[in-house]
């Protein structure tokens, strides 16, 4: 990525620094990588919540929150995401750049001090985490797992991918399962934590108005915990589609039906075919000018939202739309027609050019957002891409219609998932 300096800390953590004066904040994100597996996913996603309950210096949630607020509302956030068959746990510190607070100094250093404590000095009871914290966070985690259903859009997407990849690690829910949650206790979670911190491949990203050398010395001070050799993470399984299509209808008492189509592309971010696929997806459903939006929404008035999206590390594409339950057949037909048109290379020069311009715009604006910059750097790390924005833009500009036609042959429908209302499953 543009202007990214790379270092390796003494304990093996990779450090990426993007110095820029554009932002009012300095963003520090530590990302630990795990193989996505049923065995570990639950502990891995529960762990950051337990760590956020307190540390040696600030042993309660409240004291920790108060201390961070004191640093002009610095935030220490954790997140769990799934990219390909990796579960990525991130710890993010977002602080105001001292330049905007003339009376203040060293906000970043102070914030990093807290981050270090939270990561390395959890509150313990004997050989495990403090029991009360684990019990409470397990209850919260159970609600998170059960709560997926509260957001029907997210639920339907997760369910489609889960059905589609049920025999692959990718089918594992990033928050794990209730069964595994039951098995967790303060001792085994602490054991997991020790391995997690010592063995997980780790990347540290820093974005803001700060010199790389200064970041390096701050990072050495902060993330100086001992590490063993990093755990091996198997490659994500990439399958080419072309088998029989599966149809899954799920009935719940809902007002709107959610149609989700899962495809295999077999193409991932590191492949040469990735940019043609990006253009393919853009023409099909990435923009308001795309085929799906134009035909399903504008022409047929069947949906408010309809789009296609790539999972760039697993080689998948999904199409999603919210529709009236009794219009399942019609919506599926129009969507299938658009996918077929893509396979026949049936799109105009204007559809092609508008898409390339739109994608160019998207790549450029990523540089205006610290979070998106980190996300791109992370994608690059995962895929082994080491290119700046200009290089990505020239790859995009080099894509031809023929390239798009070639990738279209690799896109295969795998699963059609429909969330419908009670009794709505009969209409196929």
């Amino acid at each position, binding site marked *: 990525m543009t202007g990214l300096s790379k270092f390796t800390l003494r304990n093996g953590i990779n450090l990426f620094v993007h110095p*820029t004066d*554009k932002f*009012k*904040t300095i963003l520090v994100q530590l990302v630990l990588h795990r193989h996505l597996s049923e065995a570990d996913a639950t502990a891995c996603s529960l762990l950051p919540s337990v760590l956020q309950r307190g540390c040696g210096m600030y042993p*309660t*949630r*409240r004291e920790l*929150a*108060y201390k961070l*607020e*004191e*640093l*002009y*509302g610095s935030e220490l956030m954790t997140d769990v995401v799934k990219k390909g068959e990796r579960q990525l746990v991130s710890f993010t510190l*977002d*602080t*105001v750049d001292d330049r*905007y*607070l*003339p009376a203040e100094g060293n906000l970043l250093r102070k914030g990093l001090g807290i981050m270090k404590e939270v990561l390395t000095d959890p509150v313990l009871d004997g050989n495990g985490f403090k029991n009360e914290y684990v019990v*409470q966070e397990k209850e*919260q985690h159970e*609600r*998170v797992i059960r*709560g*997926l*259903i*509260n957001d*029907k*859009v997210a639920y339907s997407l997760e369910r489609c991918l889960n059905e589609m990849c049920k025999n692959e690690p990718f089918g594992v829910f990033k928050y794990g399962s209730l069964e595994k949650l039951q098995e967790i206790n303060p001792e085994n979670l602490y054991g997991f934590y020790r391995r997690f911190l010592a063995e997980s491949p780790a990347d540290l990203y820093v974005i803001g108005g700060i010199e790389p050398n200064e970041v390096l010395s701050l990072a050495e001070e902060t993330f100086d915990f001992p590490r063993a050799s990093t755990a091996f993470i198997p490659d994500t399984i990439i399958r080419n589609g072309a088998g029989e299509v*599966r*149809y*899954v*209808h*799920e*009935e*719940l*008492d809902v007002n*709107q039906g959610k149609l989700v189509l899962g495809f295999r592309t077999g193409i991932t971010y590191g492949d040469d075919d990735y940019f043609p696929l990006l253009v393919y997806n853009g023409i099909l459903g990435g*923009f*308001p*000018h795309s085929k799906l939006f134009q035909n399903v929404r*504008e022409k047929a*008035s069947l*949906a*408010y*939202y309809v789009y296609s999206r790539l999972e760039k590390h697993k080689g998948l594409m999904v199409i999603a739309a*919210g*529709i*009236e339950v009794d219009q399942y057949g019609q919506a599926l037909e129009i969507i299938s027609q658009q996918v077929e048109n893509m396979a026949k290379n049936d799109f105009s020069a204007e559809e092609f050019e*508008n898409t390339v*311009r739109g994608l*160019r*715009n998207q790549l*450029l*604006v990523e*540089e*205006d*957002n610290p979070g998106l910059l980190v996300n791109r750097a992370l994608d690059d790390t995962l895929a082994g891409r080491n290119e700046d924005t200009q290089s990505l833009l020239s790859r995009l500009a080099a894509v031809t219609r023929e390239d798009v036609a070639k990738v279209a042959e690799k896109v295969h429908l795998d699963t059609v998932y429909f969330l419908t209302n009670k009794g709505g*499953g009969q209409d196929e």
Partner: protein
Amino acid sequence: MNNTLENRLLAEKITWRRLDAGLEVFVLPKPGYNKKYATFATRFGSVDSRFVVEGEGEELEVPDGVAHFLEHKLFEEEGGSVSDRFARLGASSNAFTNFTNTAYLFSTTENFTECLEILLDFVQEPYFTEESVEKEKGIIEQEIRMYEDNPQWRVFFNLLEALYQQHPVQKDIAGTVDSIRRIDKDVLYKCYRTFYHPSNMAVFVVGDVEPERILGQVESNIGRRNYRPLGEIRRIYPSEPPTLAREYISQELVVSQPIFNMGYKDLDVGYEGERQFRRELLTELVLDAVLGSSSRLYNELYEEGLIDDEFDAGHVAEKDYGHTVIGGETRDPERLYRRLREGIERAKREGISEEMFEHHRRKITGGFLKSFNSLEFVANNFLAYHFRGINFFNYLDVLNSLTPEEANHRLRSHFGDDNCARSVILPKTGTQNSKLKTRE
């Protein structure tokens, strides 16, 4: 002719001008950013449901959801949609409608001048046909249906229905499936004529741009349209009694656990401009001290398993209405309600100390500075506050002028017994298990 607004702490400076037709144009240069963002907004939102139609003297009550419907239809032009023209230039266009405003916007990294011209043109050149208006109804119906399944959205609008007896703020912004069926071309033009005059509108441009060029371009676009001055827009709001419509409202949806919102209706309204701004910031500070992440109450509720880290509290202040909304998911809405009421009473007794007050002021200061990373955030908020007669750049000055005495007074007067309503979404009984059918 040009004016400037500067904030030294933020190191930001806006250049602005009021054009002859009454349009106000603001430009904030952000060197180094690739993105350029422009928004063209009007003071017309879902609460403007009764007004005197411009040029007719006729008082009109419009179907719910008309401002939002108009927002959708303004993208229509002869032979297609204006978003195609943005797409050809590599830009991304969009719009949104809220309670009080409608905004049209685009962002782009190239062809900015052409895009700005398109934005200015399409918002000033409505084109609706009977056929296209009918067609839009299917799309908006699905937008409404999507929100019908969204428990966070439902719990919030149900709460507004409990808080307000008359005021249209309780109506869903998109209207209902029934109300939008009553919308036609004629009513859209009436709304357009009344609310889309430049004197009721403003433009904000942010990005790596030269203010003088932007101001000149907007001036020449508006100038060639020969607008005649518009008198005052007569909006008619019902007089809202201080009492609640209902104390409690509940609805069942397919959810894993109850979702709870509690609201306090602001009985002390009628303020405008900077006074309204002060009250808003003051209330936000009080909420942060009493219910924020580091508060005693929040942490007690969290440890009791009654709230999760999505629990939130916020305040809305407008001239003729205002409310505080507190809530999130919970396993036990009855207990949470009792505990919140007790906890707020305790906070009123104990008060907010000078130290706590300074602490939360400091946190809010940092949050404001951070928010300036986002061009969209700055542009959208600047205009929303501007339409309320508030200079958003004065945020920190106003925040710094608040006192602990005022905060304690606000705490003790706003959170009463009679102005508190609650709304709960309950899990639909017997529907937690879905039925699955698979065909290979």
